[in-house]
């Protein structure tokens, strides 16, 4: 290899790497990412929802949190679930499943419907109606279209709409504490 001809390349490379690393990272305050907060909300919902016993086949069956489609969570949701399970002394533990097909919804207790599923959202909601599953999404108009919980952002904050009626239709009981922080849609 002609090392000589590579010299300018190497020199500039070194310079840039050094500037990148040593550059002051002003404002390096720890701001969480939207998807990290949503992952924490999703695992947190399990504390505020009562599923009927029929939703679980065994006493120790885990609460299955399903993510349908292309999701933004990266590792965040798995971390949130692992940490929740570690801290849990009583009650059901959680597990995550990343799913693609509608038939897989049958095994879910919480279903997060990704933005990528916009085009088939009505089919998803129709299918989910047959199960004890909490439907959550950040698609616009999700709650109006028959979904249960819809995230939205206001400024840089994450909030959510909830429709208690659709929850109760699926035999899910939301706690008062959840309804208190949510925006209730009727």
């Amino acid at each position: 290899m002609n090392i000589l001809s590579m010299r300018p390349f190497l020199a500039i490379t070194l310079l840039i790497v050094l500037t990148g690393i040593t550059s002051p990272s002003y404002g390096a305050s720890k701001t969480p990412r939207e998807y990290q907060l949503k992952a924490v909300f999703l695992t947190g919902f399990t504390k505020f929802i009562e599923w009927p016993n029929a939703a679980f086949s065994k006493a120790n069956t885990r609460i299955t949190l399903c993510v349908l489609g292309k999701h933004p969570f990266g590792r965040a949701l798995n971390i949130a679930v692992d940490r929740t399970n570690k801290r849990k002394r009583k009650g059901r533990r959680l597990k995550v499943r990343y799913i693609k097909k509608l038939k897989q919804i049958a095994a879910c207790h919480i279903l997060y419907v990704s933005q990528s599923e916009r085009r088939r959202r009505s089919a998803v909601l129709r299918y989910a109606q047959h199960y004890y599953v909490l439907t959550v999404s950040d698609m616009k108009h999700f709650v109006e279209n028959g979904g249960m919980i819809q995230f939205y952002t206001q400024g840089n904050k994450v909030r959510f709409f909830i429709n208690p009626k659709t929850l109760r239709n699926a035999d899910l009981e939301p706690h008062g504490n959840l309804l208190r922080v949510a925006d209730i849609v009727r």
Partner: protein
Amino acid sequence: MKTLLKQISWRSYLLGAVFLVATTAYGTPLDEEEAMIEYLQGLDFEDLTEVEVTLDEVFDVFDGLVKKRTVKVATGVEQSTAHAPAVTTVITAQDIEAMGVNNLNQVLEMVPGLHVARSSENYSSLYIIRGVYSDANAQVLLLINGMPIKALFAGNRGMTWAGMPANVIARIEIIRGPGSAVYGADAFGGVINVITKSKDDIDGTEAGIRMESFDTQEAWLLHGDNWAGFDVAMALEYGSTDGHGAQIEADAQTQFDHIFGTQASLAPGPVNLQHDHFDAHLDISRDVWQWRADYQKLSDFGTAVGITQALDPSGKYAGERLNTDLTYHNLDFTENWDVTAQLSYLAMTIETSTPIGLFPPGAFGGAYPYGQISYLKMSERHTRLDLSAFYSGFKKHDIRLGTGYYYGEINEVVSRANYGINPATGQAIPPGTELIDVSDSPYAFIPEKDRKSWYLFVQDVWLFAPNWELTAGLRYDEYSDFGSTLNPRFALVWDTRPDFTSKFLYGRAFRAPAFGELYSISNPVALGNPDLEPEIIDSWELAFDYRATDNLHMALNLFSYKWYDAIHFVANPGGQTRTAQNAGSQTGHGLEFETRWKMTKKASLLANYAYQESRDEEDHDAGNAPQHQAYLRTDWLVYPNWYLDTQINWVGKRHRIFADPRASLDGYTTVDLTLRRKDIRKGHWNFALGVRNLFDDDAREPSRGPTSRGIVSIPNDLPLAGRHFFLEMRYQF
């Protein structure tokens, strides 16, 4: 094959072992993400609704670089690049914006082992992957939304391929290596699938303008919205450029001037790269249906170095391309079947808007007062129906089946010339006469011909042990002109550790002969041969993917290939004419190393290095492609909302083919800077200012080797643009 396997194996294992040891010694730093989630889980719901977050939609090129990237191009199903059974790269719209580029052709250099060279024919971009070089670049398959953009005539992307606007590109997925088991013909050295923007990728309205050196202006409008239940995306772009016009010191006519003592050459003179372009894009979807259409019109398109490598500043082309597809994709066709059907159509037309000059006035002792000129027009049409389905009814197998039909034709050829034979009289056209119509005669440059083909493929992804996945695929293609071909692929993917993936890959691919190679009858130095067989390549790869930390990813690939039945124009007895033959072969091997590193919250780095060595059938260097190349890109948030992107591209020395007496072509280094002010909120202007080839390096790409008479038409190669600048403004409504 045995020796080849041997050759790849010891080297690869050694390198693989070194790589594993070197990288695992790096250690794991504190996990920021776990800490953040722990903190958030300590808050109650009321507090959580008050937490300020960084929105996902934000322009975050630093995180984007190390975020999991998924590809569909490897098997047809969405997979992470780390696990896909192929060596793949994904380029996102965010990458494209960060780099400040406005055309597909400027984006691809960041792919390890891919080098963008120029064609001696028309200066169009050649995507050279791993040393597989040819002037038409027919060995790399370019797809737009899965549809091949491929001309029947030369196997290239059309005579006036000028890329496509980067503004409409949502993502690009690239396979280095063969893909015929999935894509059929021409997925030979690699596959580039460009996916255009849909409603969600635009969501709103954006208008922009760009000004660049060489009198280049561009304006565009993007719009994405929901209309009456339909997701609609639209894009319009208009642009015009004079081209960089770098000097061509000597051309083909210069060489003839030396021989005949004439002074007709227009060299030294600028390369003619001017053109205007208009692009329109439409994407309408609802439920399981999607309709997309792309239209491109090029006008006043310069002849670059001229069709015969003799400068021709007055000749101009006009070109049109329409590609459209109607796609049905139902993930839940039945409980276990995920079904896709795509009907697609591609039409390409090229026409000389001002007759092109083969040789300038003064050539041939001044016999032709206007020079040797010609008018041509050619249209191609391609129609495809592709059906494929995934079956997920078996527990450890994911089976994919597919079939399809293709019909393509060169449906219109018009050819007029003031030289050669007049078909009406059978006599030579006397110098100095008007253009004579030679269409529909044996003197036209190509007869009107068609091609039909159909195929069948099957693929199984088998999870045969925990952490082990075997992908096996086989595709059968039947062509009306050269018969059938069968192309297998095998891929073994092993999750060696949770953060480390190893892959062993084998694939065979073919390239269908172009119509020019099969049927050309009037060009004495490039006569067609209807008995040609397809070119074949066998490739072996060993790939490693290592996620050292959340912020540092590395990949190493080793490859070896054998390309045989390569189509060359071989001199016939007497040496006056050349005919296409399956005469060549080439072997090559090499490696690619890539690292993606989010250095801090405000800085990231992508670097890659690629090495390849390719040799022809007589063990000479295969030439033209760089043996070494390296690329580095850094992005840095220098101040809130101000981003600085630096790209450094080093292209090593290019050896010549054996028959070419010239010394090796020197390598070059280009440095590009882009400073961008970006505020993602609507109702804001975003600006970018950039410089390309900052140090004004004399960058050149190899020109074509000697003709049958031993003449190198353009001895000083094809110059690229020197230092130049751009300014870009975008407004979001």
